[in-house]
C-alpha cells in the first residue's frame, strides 16, 4: 500500500532540515534517530561555535530541533535504528528496532510504512590513531582533535590535558585522515581549514598570550571564508600559517616536539608545542555505511552515498524514491547540509505527489 510519509533517517542538522522541509510543504515525515537526542554530531561532539562567524552552535541546533519536535506533521523516533527494508518505491516498509539491541530480529521490532526515504546519517570523524604520520594521539594526552578542542571551547577554557595549564604554544595539523592515498581517504574534507582557523581565532581570544600556528598543505578558504576567517585570523588575531605538514610528534621534556618542513623557507623545521590539535577529516559514519548496505544504494569507493546525478542533482541516489543529504554524501559544511536537506525534502515530497496524481488521487 503506498504511503504519503517520508522517512528521514538521521536526526542531525541534515535530517532536521529535511523533516522540517517536508512539513513546510505539507507532507508528513517520520524522523528516525539512533541516539536518544536530536542534533547529530554538533551536539554529540560538543560543537562550540559555528564556522565561519563563531556564533554559538548549541542554541542554533536547538532551534532546529524545537521546530521539528513542535511540528505535528513530524513524528520523531529516538533511540531507534532501521533494521531492515522491504517493499518498493512509494510503498516501503521499514523494520525498526531499539538502538541498544543487537539481535537482527526481535519481538520488539516495529514496522512503519513510507513512500520515500531520505538518508541523513551523516559522517564520523577520522580516528587519528590510524593516521599515516606519527602523531601519537593515543599516546600523548596533549595531542587532541578538533572535536576535543570544541568540547573545551564549549566550557570556555582551553587547557593542556597533561597538566591542566593553559597552553602557551598551540598548533593545528591539517589534513589528518584526508588527502591521503595510504589511508585511502584521498578526498579533501572541506571544512577543516575553516574550522581550524575559527578555533585558532577562539584560542587567541581566550588566551591572548598564546602563540597559535596552523601547519597546512593548502588553505581551503572557499568564497567568503577567505575574508571572513583567513584574513582576520592573520591580520587581527595573528595566527601563524606555515605551509608544511607535520610528520611526527614526540614528547620533549614536558612539551611536544613537532617536526616537518617549512616549505616556504625550504628547510626542515622542529618546534616545541604545548598542545597539538589534529584537524581530523570526515568519513562515512557507521550508520551511513550500514544504511546504505540495507537500502542497497550505490556508495562511492570511500563508502559515502553516491549522488548519481551530480552536479545538477546533488541528492538523488541510484534507487528510486531514496534520496540523501548532508555528510552522508561526502564532506559537507553546515550550509551544504541544510541546502541539500531542503533539496531532498522537496524532491521526496514532489515524488510522492506526482505518484499520487498519476494514481488519480
Amino acid at each position, binding site marked *: 500500500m503506498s504511503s504519503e510519509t517520508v522517512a528521514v533517517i538521521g536526526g542531525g542538522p541534515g535530517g532536521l532540515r529535511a523533516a522540517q522541509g517536508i512539513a513546510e510543504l505539507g507532507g508528513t515525515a517520520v524522523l528516525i534517530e539512533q*541516539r536518544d537526542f536530536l542534533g547529530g554530531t554538533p*551536539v*554529540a*561532539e*560538543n560543537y562550540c561555535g559555528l564556522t565561519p562567524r563563531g556564533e554559538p552552535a548549541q542554541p542554533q541546533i536547538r532551534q532546529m530541533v524545537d521546530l521539528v519536535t513542535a511540528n505535528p506533521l513530524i513524528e520523531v523516533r529516538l533511540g531507534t535504528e532501521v533494521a531492515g527494508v522491504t517493499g518498493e518505491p512509494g510503498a516501503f516498509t521499514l523494520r525498526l528496532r531499539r538502538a541498544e539491541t543487537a539481535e537482527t530480529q526481535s519481538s520488539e521490532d516495529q514496522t512503519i510504512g513510507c513512500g520515500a526515504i531520505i538518508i541523513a546519517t551523516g559522517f*564520523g*570523524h577520522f*580516528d*587519528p*590513531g*590510524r593516521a*599515516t604520520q*606519527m*602523531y*601519537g*594521539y*593515543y*599516546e600523548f*594526552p596533549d595531542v587532541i582533535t578538533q*572535536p*576535543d578542542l570544541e*568540547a*573545551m571551547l*564549549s*566550557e570556555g577554557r582551553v587547557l593542556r*590535558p597533561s597538566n591542566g595549564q593553559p597552553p602557551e604554544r598551540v598548533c593545528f595539523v591539517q589534513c589528518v585522515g584526508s588527502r591521503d*592515498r*595510504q*589511508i*585511502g581517504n584521498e578526498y579533501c574534507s572541506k571544512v577543516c581549514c575553516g574550522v581550524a582557523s575559527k578555533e585558532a581565532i577562539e584560542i587567541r581570544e581566550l588566551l591572548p598570550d598564546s602563540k597559535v600556528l596552523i601547519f597546512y598543505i593548502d588553505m581551503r578558504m572557499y568564497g567568503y571564508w577567505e575574508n571572513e576567517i583567513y584574513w582576520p585570523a592573520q591580520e587581527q588575531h595573528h595566527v601563524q600559517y606555515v605551509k608544511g605538514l607535520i610528520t*611526527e610528534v*614526540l*614528547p*620533549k*621534556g614536558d612539551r611536544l*616536539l613537532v617536526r616537518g618542513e617549512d616549505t616556504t623557507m625550504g628547510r626542515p623545521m622542529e618546534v616545541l608545542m604545548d598542545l597539538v590539535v589534529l584537524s581530523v577529516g570526515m*568519513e562515512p*559514519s*557507521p550508520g551511513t*555505511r*550500514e544504511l546504505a548496505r540495507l537500502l542497497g544504494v550505490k556508495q562511492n569507493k570511500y*563508502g559515502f552515498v553516491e549522488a548519481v546525478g551530480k552536479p545538477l542533482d546533488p541528492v538523488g541516489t541510484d534507487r528510486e524514491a531514496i534520496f540523501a543529504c548532508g555528510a552522508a554524501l561526502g564532506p559537507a559544511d553546515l550550509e551544504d547540509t541544510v541546502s541539500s536537506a531542503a533539496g531532498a525534502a522537496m524532491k521526496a515530497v514532489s515524488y510522492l505527489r506526482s505518484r499520487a496524481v498519476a494514481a488519480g488521487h
Partner: protein
Amino acid sequence: MTIPIGAPLDARRLVNATAEPVVDRRSLDDPRAELLELERQGELIVQKIDGEAISVATKYGREKRIQKAHLWHHKSCGQCGHIPGYSTSIFWMMRKLGYDYHDPHDQTSCTAWNYYASATSNTAAQAAVAVRNFAAAYETGYFPLIHCGTSYGHYKEVREQLIRHPELRAQVRGIMAKLGKPLVLPEEIVHYSEWVHALRHEIAARQVRDVSGIVVTVHPACHYHKIVSGDAIYDPDIYGGQRTAVVTGLAEALGAEVRSYSTWFDCCGFGFRHILVQRDFTRSFATLRKIEVMKEEANPDVVLTHDTGCVTTLDKSQFAARAHGRNVGLAVLSDAQFAALAMGAHPYRVCQLHWHSADYRPPLEKMGIDWEKAWAEFQSDLRRLESGEKRYLDWDDADGLHDEEGPSALGTDTTIEVRDVL
C-alpha cells in the same frame, strides 16, 4: 553518547573506532593472500608456515604468524662480520628455548647494503638473489628467519615487485631454472626481532638476571617499520599502538624500564654509502640526533636496537665524537644480546661484547655480571684454542660446561624456571 570533555585516551579510542578496517591502500593489502593467489595460478611456490606458530598483529590489523621452531637462519653480513655476538645470541637463545634450526652454508648475502650504497645492481639481480636464498631454505624445509633489518625491508620490497610485475617473475623464474631451483617465496617474511617479540614471554620465563634497574632507550630500524609499513608488528598495549612494538615489547617483558626521547623515529644515520665513504655524516647524525638526545632526555643505561646497521652506527660513532667533547658514551646492544644476557648468557662467549666499541660494562655491572671474571674465563678459552687443545669454541664451551670449576655461574644451563612472568 557524547564524548566527555577531557576524556582519557581509551575512552576517546572507543568513540573514534569505526567499522572500517584500515589498510595502506598504496601498498598491497595482504601480500600473503596475493602470494597464495599467484601460487594457485601456478606462478610460484609459497613456502608455508609449518608447525606451531604465534599470531601477532601488524600495523593495519592484518594477522601475521611467526613460526616458532624449525627455522632457516638467513644471516647478516655485518653481524657475522663484525658483531658476531649478535648472531651468536640469536642462535643461543633459540637453543635455550629448545627450538631446532638450520644454519646454512648455501646462503648468500642479500646484497642490499651494496645496492642501497652504490646501486651497482638492478631489480632482477636483487630479486634473484632473494629468491635463490628462499629456494635454498625451501629445499631444506626450514622456514626462513631474516637476521638483518635491511635484508628484511629489501625482501619485502622485492616481494611486492614480484607480485606486481609478471615480467620480473618470468625473468627470475628463468634464472632460477638455470640453477635448478624453483621460484619460491615464504608465506611471511619474518625478521628475527619479530620472533623474539612473539616469544618474549617464553624468554622472560627463562630470565635469570634482574634488569629492573636497567633504563633502556629503543631505536627502531628504518627498514623494519618504514618499508612496507603494514608488515611491522604493532600492539595496542605498547605505545598505545602508535609506534612499532618490537624491541620495546621484549625490554618491557624482561622488566627493564623503557624511556622515550624526542628523536625516536629518526634514522640512525647509517646511510649505506655514508658509513664507509661519508663518515662525518653518519657519525654526526648518530651522535647529535640519537645518542646525545637519548642521554640528555632519557639518561639510559643502554640503547637497544634490532638491526645490523643501527648497532654498527650507534656503537661505532661515539669514539670519534668523544674526541670533540660530545656527550656520548652509551652502551649499544641488540635486543638479542640483551635478551641472551637476561637469560644468563656469557657476555664474551655468547654476546661477544669485546667486538663492541662503546663501553658496555656499566649495564653489565647493573645486571650483576662480574665481567672481569667473565673476561678471565674467556681468556682461558682463548688459551685453550691457542695451545691447540681445541680448534674452535663450541656451544658447550659457551655455557661453561667445560670450565674446570664446573659450570660458570655466568653461563648456567637455563632450564630452571626462575620467576613468575607478569
